[in-house]
């Protein structure tokens, strides 16, 4: 079945440490890929997106993501986490070549930052 999976429900990282949030997808053709962040009580903000080309994508707030076709993954990374990065992170896809589609979200990963 087509799906987007975020294996980690909750991750805690020390401030200043590196971060990697995992995202895997299961679609026949590589979908368009996105990462969104949601701060508590807020809407969603786009961090970065991948459609084609360079497999390492730079986003806002110092985040980057790497697309790996062989692993059907689009993991989000940050070299040094700040306390303000504590939020919920959603991987999302838009399937290609499918009429009537919209963003399909993973279930999210909650990031906590410890001091």
């Amino acid at each position, binding site marked *: 079945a087509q799906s987007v999976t975020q294996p980690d429900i909750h991750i805690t990282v020390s401030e200043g440490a590196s971060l990697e949030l995992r995202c895997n997808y299961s679609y026949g053709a590589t979908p368009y890929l996105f990462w969104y962040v949601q701060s508590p009580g807020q809407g*969603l903000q786009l961090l970065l*997106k991948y459609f084609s080309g360079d497999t390492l994508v730079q986003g806002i707030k110092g985040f980057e993501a790497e697309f790996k076709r062989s692993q059907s993954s689009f993991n989000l990374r940050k070299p040094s986490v700040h306390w303000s990065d504590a939020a919920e992170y*959603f991987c999302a896809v838009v399937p290609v070549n499918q009429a009537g589609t919209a963003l399909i*979200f993973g279930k999210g990963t909650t990031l906590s930052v410890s001091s």
Partner: protein
Amino acid sequence: NAGVTQTPKFRILKIGQSMTLQCTQDMNHNYMYWYRQDPGMGLKLIYYSVGAGITDKGEVPNGYNVSRSTTEDFPLRLELAAPSQTSVYFCASSYGPTAMGGYTFGSGTRLTVV
């Protein structure tokens, strides 16, 4: 530079009541969407619209209705509210179907049905 505006921000409904969640965007986006967010479940698509006068069902449309009479507005109607509709509702818009520019989200409406 308002983006997507949702009203109200909070609402408590009694079972069986009805209400309309308002959504307005000022970016001239053709595509608009309604999602609901439940804890641990991510966001699920309720309805979407590809332009004025055109709407279609998403993954979880039961208990909801929408209309799109103008490009700017995409209200979501709840008829006969049920506790299962307790959720946070997000409206979003995009320029095109593949969201190459990303979606712009409103700040959400937190609805409780008691």
